[in-house]
């Protein structure tokens, strides 16, 4: 079966983001960019399913700027077979991304679609669910185990009180949580090979999607700072402070 994996180019998770002085957003100039960590897990899961002989072809897609080719090449180096860049300079919001991905699903007809549960920039946690709704597919969000069997996939999900397992009819959408797998590192030969793998470029208009945002960001500010408190010497002093000063016990 064919697997489609959607990825996003985001600020590297090790970078401490800074809000711009004019409060229009966070500083992105000269900041290290990377594949969204949850999407890396999504690519890895597809590659493992291919190694098990369940998946036969992995198509990786991103909606983003021309520079997002870099992240597609990373995914190709990890084991994806070909890539599609939907090139746009707009800050495309989840619903429009889901509509574009729906267009790709209609063309590519994948049986399994894997995405990260959220991108670590906008923290929206929406795109996979929206794509599933638009396509009329079932979804297994926040996945920690994925088992494909016949025309079904069993997904064990990380939920508030523990774990929940659901069975979905294929085609279906899976969004990854952290514990699904530990992504591999791309080897140098695979990085070289990835440069020769096919990469198609499209635009949102090719799918009849208007990528203009419907939610406007009015301003972005740093969070309220928490001041460091005091260091106490003894447990007695700590208990006294908690009882009489903070009054929380």
């Amino acid at each position, binding site marked *: 079966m064919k697997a489609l994996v959607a990825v996003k180019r985001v600020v590297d998770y090790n970078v401490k983001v800074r809000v711009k002085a004019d409060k229009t957003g966070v500083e992105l100039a000269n900041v290290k960019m990377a594949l969204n960590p949850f999407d890396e897990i999504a690519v890895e899961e597809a590659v493992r399913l291919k190694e098990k002989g369940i998946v036969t072809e992995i198509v990786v897609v991103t909606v983003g700027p021309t520079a997002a080719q870099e992240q597609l090449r990373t995914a190709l180096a990890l084991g994806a077979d070909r890539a599609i860049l939907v090139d746009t300079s707009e800050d495309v919001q989840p619903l429009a991304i889901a509509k574009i991905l729906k267009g790709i699903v209609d063309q590519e007809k994948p049986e399994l679609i894997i995405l990260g549960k959220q991108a670590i920039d906008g923290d929206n946690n929406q795109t996979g669910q929206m794509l599933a709704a638009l396509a009329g597919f079932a979804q297994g969000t926040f996945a920690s185990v994925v088992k494909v069997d016949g025309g079904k996939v069993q997904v064990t999900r990380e939920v508030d009180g523990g774990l929940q397992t659901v069975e979905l009819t294929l085609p279906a959408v899976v969004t990854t949580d952290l514990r699904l797998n530990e992504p591999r590192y791309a080897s140098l030969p695979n990085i070289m090979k990835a440069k020769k793998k096919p990469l198609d470029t499209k635009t949102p208009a090719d799918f009849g999607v208007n990528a203009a945002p419907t939610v406007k*960001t009015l301003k972005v500010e740093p969070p309220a700072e928490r001041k*460091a408190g005091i260091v106490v010497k003894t447990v007695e002093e700590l208990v006294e402070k908690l009882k009489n000063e903070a009054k929380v016990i």
Partner: protein
Amino acid sequence: MSILVCAEHDNASIKGATLNTVTAAKAIGGDIHVLVAGQGCQAAAEAAAKIDGVTKVLVADNAVYGHQLAENISLLVAQLGKGYSHVLAPATSNGKNFLPRVAALLDVNQISEITKVISADTFERPIYAGNAIATVQSGDAIKVLTIRPTGFDAAAAAGGSAAIEAVATAANAGTSTFVGEELAKSDRPELAGAKIVVSGGRGMGNGDNFSILYSLADKLGAAVGASRAAVDAGFVPNDMQVGQTGKVVAPQLYVAVGISGAIQHLAGMKDSKVIVAINKDAEAPIFQVADYGIVGDLFDIVPQLEKLI
């Protein structure tokens, strides 16, 4: 304006996050209706009718909603949601699962995890794991929002007397089935709503050592959490994780034990009222956000603390 709040419940009772969501609805202003969709959920619907500020409770009691399958619930909520200006759900794993589907079916964007209502169309929400706060304005006809429970006080669970109305719709997408669940059983309060949280990190050394935290927590009536490092090391299960990739908590008192204070962890607890840090490394970043810090061996300090309170 009229607001539809999707209740988080276990069929028998209403979960705390629903009360925070009702408070967010009050801040938006308008008629507040609560939807209780489940199986055998009459008791939860009756509890919802008592929430202060709620004017009507819609109850969809049907086997197809039994396990809150997103495919079915979203069809129901999208159909009902057409008649409202706002559709809200708590940003719990359940709310985050089905509400984006509702937004897509209504052809609008969702605004996730709002922490403040500025006006009926303008909201604050954290981005970049809480390292920046965005103020966003929705231009969509129906505002679909998930509410971060720690951003809003709980509405009073008693005092209201809303009418309860049955919804007959049985929306069954037929694409998913519930197989099973493994839920952690505990007599301690739930992490998300606990007044006091005691969390352990890599400094705990192993899972067995968490027993000293359980013992302290039981004396305090606290929930027990953990850092991602402790979860990744296999000390405790993932549903205990506090942080960017786990749960966000904001209790009255947060006790961080053997936790260095990685930015991913701080994202999940820095809105707590009072933070106590216990760590042997005086340079650990956790001390920069703690109200009270104590430097030393946690295996000495925690049992002493338990004895003294």
